[in-house]
């Protein structure tokens, strides 16, 4: 092909330009889909429960990711502050993942269980009341806004299309029982979603307002789950190195 024919044919120029600039992305991304050990083989990682899904939605819609990362890097200082480095497996059901690219606030990948529910609620309402030097804005409306979970089933189906194993049929349910145990499989069954969400909201007094399901309930339930799925004490030093 003559150089001139590319230069004078803008359509062709666009197509060829796109082809060239996508090489960089393709060679970095595509192999990850077929390299065997990209996602570690690890016990405990499961899809989010309905309440956690809504909490995650709020996390995204309030823009928490703009200041908080959810990825602990394999460095000694990060280990000492945040805990074990994050595994790819731990965000395998995240669509989209919340790794983030900037830390204005601390990393949240293992924040689950680090603070009490009261602390999380009070801190989200008014961060400076607990951490005077904090620059995080308050989110007091979360405690006042009833949680809208009317579309929870649709949300789960959408995530299912993206590859998260929520179950709709008996067959899929059975597969989940096999994989995550019966108790968890029940929570991942789409037809149960509304009941499961209400039960989880009532089971623990996430936001200090019993009898009411607020957005705070969902967000705190989500935060308290973060990074708690894998029991790292089961694995010896260096176990996860084999996946790199």
């Amino acid at each position: 092909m003559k150089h001139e024919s590319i230069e004078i044919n803008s359509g062709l120029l666009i197509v060829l330009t796109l082809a060239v600039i996508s090489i960089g992305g393709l060679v970095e991304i595509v192999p990850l889909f077929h390299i065997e050990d990209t996602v570690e083989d690890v016990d405990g990682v499961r899809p989010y429960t309905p309440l956690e899904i809504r909490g995650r939605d709020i996390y995204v819609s309030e823009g928490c990711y703009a200041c908080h990362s959810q990825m602990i890097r394999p460095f000694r200082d990060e280990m000492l502050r945040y805990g074990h480095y994050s595994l790819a497996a731990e965000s395998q059901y995240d669509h989209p993942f919340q790794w983030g690219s900037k830390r204005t606030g601390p990393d949240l990948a293992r924040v689950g269980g680090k603070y009490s529910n009261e602390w999380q609620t009070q801190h989200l309402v008014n961060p400076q009341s607990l951490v005077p030097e904090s620059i995080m804005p308050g989110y007091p409306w979360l405690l006042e806004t009833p949680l809208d979970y009317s579309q929870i089933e649709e949300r789960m189906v959408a995530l299912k299309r993206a590859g998260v194993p929520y179950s709709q049929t008996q067959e899929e349910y059975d597969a989940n029982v096999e994989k995550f145990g019966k108790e968890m499989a029940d929570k991942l069954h789409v037809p149960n979603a509304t009941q499961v969400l209400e039960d989880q909201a009532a089971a623990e007094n996430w936001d200090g307002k019993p009898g009411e399901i607020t957005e705070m309930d969902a967000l705190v339930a989500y935060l308290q789950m973060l990074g708690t799925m894998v029991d790292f004490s089961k694995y010896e030093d260096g176990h996860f190195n084999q996946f790199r």
Partner: protein
Amino acid sequence: MSQPKKNKPGQVETTGHVWDGDLREYNNPLPRWWLWAFYATIVFAVVYWILYPAWPYGDSYTKGINTVEYTVEGENGEEKTVTEHWNTRALFTKSMQSSPSALAQQEWIDKVEGMSFEEIEQDPDTLQFAMSVGHGTFGDFCAACHGAGGQGKIGLFPNLADNAWLHGNSYDTIVSKIEGGINGMMPAQNVPEDTIDDLAKYVLSLSGNAEISGEAASRGKQAFASCAGCHGQDAQGNDGIGAPNLADAIWDVADVPGCGDDLGCKVDEITHVVNNGIQRQMPAFGDRLTETQIRMLAIYVRQLGGN
């Protein structure tokens, strides 16, 4: 490249292409140093491919010839050396084991591990190390609730910087609370409305925050009987179950000091606690921190309260 005839001095060569009769394109070759730097990056890339993980193929990738060595504990407790292709996780494992800072710290951690709390208190250098690690750990794991100086927050998180200890101040207690967490619970009391005022004033009178006498005092004292099960007959508290002393000037849940001299406000504070009870949790840190970290943290926390 088509090279037209040499131009006059000061005139830049053109590529030789002519458009529309008289439009020409200057030919400014890249500077030599830039060109060589560009070739150098290509050479660098090839060396990199050989040394480090680089090219994907099938379900694997080229691992490179560079390696990282670290040790793991084998099944029989003996150490064995593992050699892996260069990767950040192996480097991390190695840096946790043998980076200069890890080694320097490990030396002191070994010391702390081999000493009792009393021995550490007697050894200024080890104590200073434990305090400094404790301080850092406190900042990362405790300060969010208890405050950077351990001052806590009335109503939510206990003050660690005063000398009142809800659960006692022995090292063993502090360690076990950090390891296992605390479920702080006072059940809501069903006190009749006509007695609650007397009860509140009676409780306040124990610490000199109110005066109460005569019948009101005896009604209040009678109502306090149901509190005495936990707080004690003399309201001195019970650190076995975390019931605070109500007869001292320190307030943990009801913000009595915040009321100043306003008796009505003080009564409201007490009434609120009595009617609603308390539900507070401290998370368990046994999974997050090592035993030695917790011991050093306990030393730091204990001295916060002046011990």
